[in-house]
């Protein structure tokens, strides 16, 4: 059997088994090197998988040779490959850049444990994505959540503790809701395998428990995905986490839950529940729109850089959800591309924030004066990623806005209204991004003890690279576009 066939399993196994090994690497810097190597290997695996499923085929894997639905099944298709790329890419890029920032924020003796938690979070997130089994999704969800609680609380900022407690409570409620939903479906069908579940719900005579299950699953995952108005745990968690952790989690953590939400709904529920797609659309679309508008408005008045970007993340989740709520190939494809592009833009922004934070202790906007002159490269990267977030043509963000607007126009008579909302929120993004620009370029320089210079080259290089990728994928978006198109076709096929 060739290696490619085993890649879906290795995708989870590599970071998971590396996690305990990293703890043993006590000497200075080795833990970082080990964790980064593991993350890079998983990124390479994700890349290979993405190329293999680009044409729309699905790679199934049965753990230990036990066939589904009895054994543990993994499966990778275009949609999961897209999310895998985002997760492993964010994990690897953040780790590559992380060392200087982590050295500054976390004591040397705790670092191996910290990197180990990072790998666990990574393996949990990729595990969610490759699992073809509703219960294993729950297990991996818990692994990733527990590990990310550790990561968020691991920094020097004591305010992270109440933030993480809130996250823990909300996350646990979300996971429990999901589990209740899965339990109800298991009760009715006797299976946990998603494909099997889809086939067997058809035989269920009383669909009410399944409907209740759909409610629980949707709510639980929406809570984990920070869908408005279930997002309250996000701003504090992102703001007080160590800066590199914010890069990693903001780029991919909530998107993985959104992935499960979309996949579960399209592949299992819409096929079996009558006119469920209408319920889904009518429930999600208002939430998405409210999220886009309210969170953007909040970001416009936010005074702290990280909190501002966290609010913007909630609005961006709204875009992804809006695309999915059209229940069309165009809409899903827009969602998929935006999932990818937003990870690039927001990841880049938080990387630039990490660079700034390396020199500036206080990240409130009025305390960032003079950064434009002192850290020109960082600020240039910040601007480029910010433009991508706004959706300026030539950057990745424009591609997803364009797709989303076209999907909105196709979606029905209210299309132009939705277009107006998307454009208005883009203008709101101009406002909050430009507040950052004015803060770093035009505020009077703040007084500091030591002269401020650029961030360490390692951090800066990755930040610049991500900024350039935002431009590259704005001019040559073929790869994410093709993956997202295949994914959308698969999902819509599943929903038929």
């Amino acid at each position, binding site marked *: 059997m060739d290696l490619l066939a085993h890649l879906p399993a290795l995708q989870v196994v590599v970071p998971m088994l590396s996690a305990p090994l990293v703890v043993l690497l006590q000497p200075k810097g080795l833990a970082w090197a080990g964790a980064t190597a593991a993350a890079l290997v998983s990124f390479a695996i994700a890349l290979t998988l993405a190329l293999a499923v680009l044409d729309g085929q699905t790679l199934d894997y049965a753990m230990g040779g036990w066939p589904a639905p009895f054994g543990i099944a993994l499966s990778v298709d275009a949609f999961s490959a897209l999310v895998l790329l985002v997760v492993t890419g964010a994990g690897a890029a953040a780790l590559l850049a992380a060392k200087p920032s982590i050295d500054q924020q976390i004591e040397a003796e705790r670092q191996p444990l910290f990197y180990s938690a990072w790998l666990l979070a990574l393996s949990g997130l990729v595990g969610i994505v490759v699992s073809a089994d509703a219960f294993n999704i729950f297990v991996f969800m818990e692994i990733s959540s527990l590990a990310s609680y550790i990561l968020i609380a691991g920094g020097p900022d004591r305010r992270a503790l109440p933030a993480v407690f809130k996250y823990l409570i909300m996350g646990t409620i979300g996971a429990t809701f999901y589990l209740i939903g899965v339990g109800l479906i298991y009760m009715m069908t006797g299976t946990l395998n998603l494909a099997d579940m889809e086939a067997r719900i058809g035989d269920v005579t009383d669909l009410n428990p399944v409907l209740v299950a759909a409610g629980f699953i949707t709510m639980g995952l929406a809570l984990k995905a920070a869908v408005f108005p279930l997002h309250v745990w996000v701003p504090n968690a992102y703001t007080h986490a160590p800066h590199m952790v914010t890069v990693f989690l903001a780029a991919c953590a909530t998107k993985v839950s959104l992935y499960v939400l979309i996949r579960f709904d399209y592949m299992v529920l819409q096929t079996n529940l009558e006119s469920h797609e209408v319920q889904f659309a009518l429930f999600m679309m208002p939430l998405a729109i409210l999220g886009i508008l309210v969170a953007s408005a909040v970001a416009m008045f936010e005074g702290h850089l990280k909190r501002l970007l966290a609010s913007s993340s909630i609005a961006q989740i709204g875009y992804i959800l809006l695309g999915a709520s059209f229940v069309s190939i165009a809409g899903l494809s827009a969602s998929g591309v935006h999932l990818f592009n937003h990870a690039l833009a927001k990841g880049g922004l938080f990387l630039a924030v990490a660079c700034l934070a390396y020199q500036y202790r206080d990240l409130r906007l009025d305390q960032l004066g003079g950064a434009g002159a002192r850290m020109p490269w960082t600020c240039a990267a910040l601007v480029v990623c910010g*433009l991508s977030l706004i959706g300026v043509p030539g950057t990745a963000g424009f591609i997803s806005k364009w797709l989303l607007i076209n999907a909105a126009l196709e979606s029905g008579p209210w299309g132009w209204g939705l277009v107006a909302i998307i454009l208005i929120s883009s203008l709101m993004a*101009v406002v909050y991004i430009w507040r950052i620009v004015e803060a770093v370029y035009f505020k009077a320089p703040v007084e500091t003890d030591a002269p401020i210079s650029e961030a360490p080259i390692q951090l800066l290089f990755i930040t610049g690279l991500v900024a350039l990728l935002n431009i590259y994928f704005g001019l040559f978006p073929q790869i994410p576009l093709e993956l997202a198109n295949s994914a959308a076709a698969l999902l819509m096929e599943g929903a038929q």
Partner: protein
Amino acid sequence: MIPETAILLAIGIPLAGALAIALAGKISPNVREAATAITSVSLIWVVWGLLPTLFDGGRPAVEVSELMPGLTIAFTVEPLGMLFAALASGLWLINSIYSVGYMRGNNEKNQTRFFACFALALSATMGIAFAGNLFTLFLFYELLTLSTYPLVAHKGDAATVRSARIYLGVLLSTSIGLFLPAIIWTYNVAGTGDFTAGGILAGKLNDPEIGLLLGLFVFGIGKAAVMPMHKWLPAAMVAPTPVSALLHAVAVVKAGVFAITKIIVYIFGVEFLFAAPSSQWLLYAAAFTVITASLVALRQTNIKRLLAYSTIAQLSYVVMAAAILKPLAEVGAAIHMVAHAFGKITLFFAAGAIYVASKKTEIHQLRGIGRRMPWTMAAFTIGALSMIGVPPTGGFVSKWYILAGAFQADNLVAVFTIIASTVLNAAYFLPILYLVWFEREKEGGKAHGEAPFLAVLALCLTALLTLGFFLFNGPVIELESQVVKGIS
């Protein structure tokens, strides 16, 4: 060099130049200025090298990337864009000469950023000029807005940042809020956004919608400063004068009217639009802007703000000429872009030279300044006469064509507007000329002479161009007549 390469080089050279300038700034100002000079000369060489192909009727085109089916980044050189690119690249060289004199004479800070952003703005301008479809045009349109923002905000104090915010706010919100929906609408209706001779919308859009789409385009292209989207232009006057001269009299504002003309000619199609009654309003909107902006200009006391309102009026001349929808008027629109560019850049150069030499910014301070700065004020006079449209200046030629087009269409509104605005132009420029040449300077004024040599040299060159365009405009008219070939 094959034309396809030349197109890419025209965009690539200033881009590379921006990088070179940024790096050279670390070495020494002289190396940096040499980088600017080399970049602008090679840009002229590349862009003007395309002219023979165009005169032979060639339309070189190149596609860079297909983002998704139907949406491409592609360039096509046609006469309108060729004229715009040749104009902007040529004036950039003169403007760079002027900038060196101005920026050094004024001891401005952040000169490296200034010159680098300037080169970037030129790259965006070339992209706009050669854009082969609406999406490419939009891409470079936004890039131009963003690359000029640091130039407007150059001074960096609170008032400047506030003005720069208006600049960016108006330009970005009109382009995202109106221009982008118009583009998306066009792509959805026509299935393409390629600039095609004769237009792409004929038969695909009905009457009230035609007027609406036109409105989205005209007001979405805020750079054309058709009222009420004009507020950014006076705000942009906080920029150093070379920026106002090249960008806010030539590159940026002309990008706006150029885009509108191009959309009328190649997206709607002149004849298609002429047959649609709902497109009539554009003429009135432009005429209103011409008159109103001229009236506002009458009341200005600051030189640069007066020039800004005069620019707003002159831009709407171009829009109005394009909206007459007759061949001669379309040619007039193209020629007016050139004539106004020469005249207005001269006026701004003169305003900047006055500021460098004497720190004067208000009109009433100009009393008798003609004796201290004879060269500068002679050039200023030529520019002002061209704005009014007096022969022998370039402004006369374009007015002639626009009037001819207006008569061709029996459009009395346009005729009346041209006459009225000529009177108004005279009313706000002639008193200044009187003040400058015939009044006596107040006692106790600071003694000063001409501005630095490079600045004076540049403004004399553009004044000569203004005069020269009156006599030698044949090639331009020949080239632009290709655009309207076959249209009655």
